[in-house]
């Protein structure tokens, strides 16, 4: 009994004090009122939440959802065949190497990856120089950087490993004989894929989607660096409230974002019964 307290105590204490308490505090702040030059007045009101219903913010939520959804879908389409190949079609020796290779770029650091794209996509950056030298274009493509395209490129690139790994885990458990059986029974490749492989790897797909979608929803550095600060996502608005010293509004938006994510998670994991194991 005492040993349990000793073992679990530090973690519960640390997370309780330095994680749950801060979350509790922004919950409190979200019902407080802003005083003009920063600071907070403690009179309970729901004005911050009402302010979040302003149509002004709706286009921001909408945009965040669209970008996050697009990131997730593009990632899924790119990564599923890769995960499938690694899990099903490569030998044991190659498997580990290929997995390691798709994780390595992820170890290079988040800012570096983003910077690499700035470097590549600039008007006089690598890609434009290459295209110009090849005489494919006669002036630089300016939409490559500081655009939604650039934001999507940066986001998708950054999330690829988070998509591949969970897909790989569930594809590896797939019994390939079931696919063969389906094809023997007359299914073509596509229907075997959509009616056998996809349902059997549903858990992995859901986990991967969740792992990619959530960080994309809260992203704010990529839109800033690659998007040229031309349009805001929810993360940028939260960051702005800190800069503009409106902690109550920032808190309310943070609480809202957290609740949305928790609800999405519950929905996602209700639809995949055994998903808890693979989430680990």
């Amino acid at each position, binding site marked *: 009994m005492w040993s*349990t307290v000793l*073992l*679990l105590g*530090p*973690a519960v204490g*640390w*997370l309780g004090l*330095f*994680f749950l308490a*801060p*979350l509790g505090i*922004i919950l409190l*702040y979200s019902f407080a009122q802003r005083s*003009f*030059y*920063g600071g907070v007045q403690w009179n309970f009101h729901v004005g911050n939440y009402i302010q979040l219903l302003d149509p002004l913010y709706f*286009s*921001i939520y909408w*945009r965040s959802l669209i970008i996050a959804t697009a990131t997730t879908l593009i990632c899924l389409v*790119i990564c599923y065949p*890769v995960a499938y190949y690694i899990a099903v079609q490569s030998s044991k020796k190659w498997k*580990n190497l290929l997995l*390691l290779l798709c*994780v*390595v*770029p992820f*170890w*290079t*650091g988040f800012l*570096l990856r*983003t*910077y*690499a*794209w*700035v*470097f590549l996509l600039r*008007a*006089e950056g690598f890609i434009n*120089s290459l295209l110009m030298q090849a005489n494919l274009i006669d002036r630089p493509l*300016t939409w490559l*950087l*500081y655009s939604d395209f650039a934001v999507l490129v940066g986001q998708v690139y950054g999330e690829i490993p988070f998509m591949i790994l969970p897909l790989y885990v569930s594809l590896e458990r797939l019994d390939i004989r079931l696919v063969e059986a389906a094809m023997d029974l007359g299914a073509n490749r596509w229907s075997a894929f959509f009616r056998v492989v996809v349902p059997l790897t549903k858990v992995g797909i859901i986990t991967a989607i969740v792992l990619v979608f959530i960080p994309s*929803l*809260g992203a704010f*550095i990529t839109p800033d*660096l690659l998007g*040229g*600060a*031309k*349009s*805001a996502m929810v*993360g940028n608005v*939260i*960051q702005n409230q*800190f800069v503009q*010293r409106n902690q109550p509004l920032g808190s309310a938006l*943070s609480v809202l974002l*957290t609740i949305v*994510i928790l609800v999405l998670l519950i929905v996602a994991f209700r639809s995949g019964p055994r998903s808890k194991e693979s989430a*680990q």
Partner: protein
Amino acid sequence: MTRLWLIIVYLILYAPIAVLVVFSFNRGRIGAVWRGFTWDWYTAALNNQTIIQSLRLSLLVAVLTAVLATLVGTAAALAFYRRRLRLRRAYEAMFYLPIIVPEIVVGFAMVAFFGLIGFRLGLWTVVIAHVAFSVSYVFFVVRARLTMLPPRLAEAAMDLGANEVQAFVRVTLPLLAPAIAAAALLVFTISLDDYVITSFVAGAGAATLPLQVYSMIKTGITPEINAISTILLLTTVVLAAVSFQLRAGRFTKVNGTLVATVLIGIGAFAAGGSNPTVTQAELNLLIWSNYIAPSVVRNFEQRYRVKVNMETYDSNEAMLAKLQAGVARYDIIVPSDYMVRILIKQNLLLPLDHASLLNRVHLDPAMLNRPFDPQNRYSLPYAWTTAGIGYRKDKVTEPIDSWSALWNPAYRDRIVMLDDVREAFAVALKLSGYSLNSTNANELRQARDRLVEQKPLVRAYDSAAFDQVLLSGDAWLSHGYSGQIAKIMLEHPAIAFVIPREGCTIAIDNLCIPRVAQRPDLAHEFINYLMEPAVAAENMNFIVYPIPNRAALPMVRAELRNNPALFPPAEALKNCEYLADVGETMLLYDRYWTEVKIHR
């Protein structure tokens, strides 16, 4: 088919990194044209004290985080191992939370929390925050391994006479070691890489490498970043490879020694930065990014035997937010005119002791006694600037003398605007012939409409790196500050700067001492030191913003002294205005700015 796809995806994964690495050896400073091989950027990066210092700090934080999180997280995982736990699900949920909650929310919550309990931001707040979000990773990695352990082994040991502790130390722990080591490495790299949360909770003197890299990406894009990136890449790849081996369960002597060596090496490097024998006095400086010469700071440190901790910001509002978070004790801040007014009103500034600021006699009287602080009781001018148009004479052939150039469709996608609500509105208001401090809703609405109309032409909104965008040729016209544009004039002959005839903002940045300062005595020394003519000249040669110090001017490089972009004739300034505090109207500005930003 699938194999081809696989190859393409791996190419995409590695191409950006490969290009980044290759260009760290490129002789050219800008652009992506190969100009020959050089090691110069590596030498430069490794001689850059700011970078080395922040690297040390990052490693120190990562080591502390790895040790603490691994201890705490492993213990928690053991508590879950073959024990009945009340509230098991609740605890599990608690461990899931840090993985689920977006980083931006965590950062925001942490800084609110530290502010509320009055905990000073610094190195420790970074470690505390890092441990808080990484305990969960350790917990899940170690627990996954524990569930795979054959349960009977420990029982067998106990049957053979071992007590619970012995069974744990001699049987369970060795079996668990690979997972613990892998978890520690995972946490180490996560901590090393974290930007978002750190940017909220790092106080003065806690600028970790990611914070440094971010400000380099934002302000000075040179191959130095590529060089540092390459070094980091190599380090992380080695660590990652070892970690991968460990998780696969291959805990060999070689791996163990490798990890131990790397850790000891890193620890020694990190500890080498702090000088434990001398407890030095510290001065906490909060200043605009790239706004003071490193040599000026270094000389002060040596002359007065103090350590200067520097933290940067890129808007007055961000500075105020940091100051009001109330958690860091800055000794010197550098607010602009209207912000000085706000700070005085808020009673956040300490009156200056003019008796100890003898060098103020050198200052240009034209920059003293300005309306925001009539007797200079709280502030002394540090440097000043205008926000006009920087442009490329080689790309823009017509003469530029009006803001309307930034609305010219011929320059579509070649225009950069400052990412700052007041500066952007100042341009639009001036273009319509209004005061840039307008509080008239009608005028503001017109200004908003103009900015919305301009948006399709704008390449980016950027307050920090607008000069780099101009220099690299990405943009041809940029709304920007005189000093920063003058700095790139030194590098590129085709760059010009103009104060539009409609007028623009003029700003004085001032040295002030906040009330919360811990060393007001040292702060006064520092201000007095900065006003020494030789120091001011050295400083101006580096920052390239005009410093209003008459005695320093003869010592300033001629190409700066004679540059009308920096020292415009009085005639050019006649329509310029200082930004004023607009009070509650700021809410309207913010709202309209958001509307501009969301417009597609």
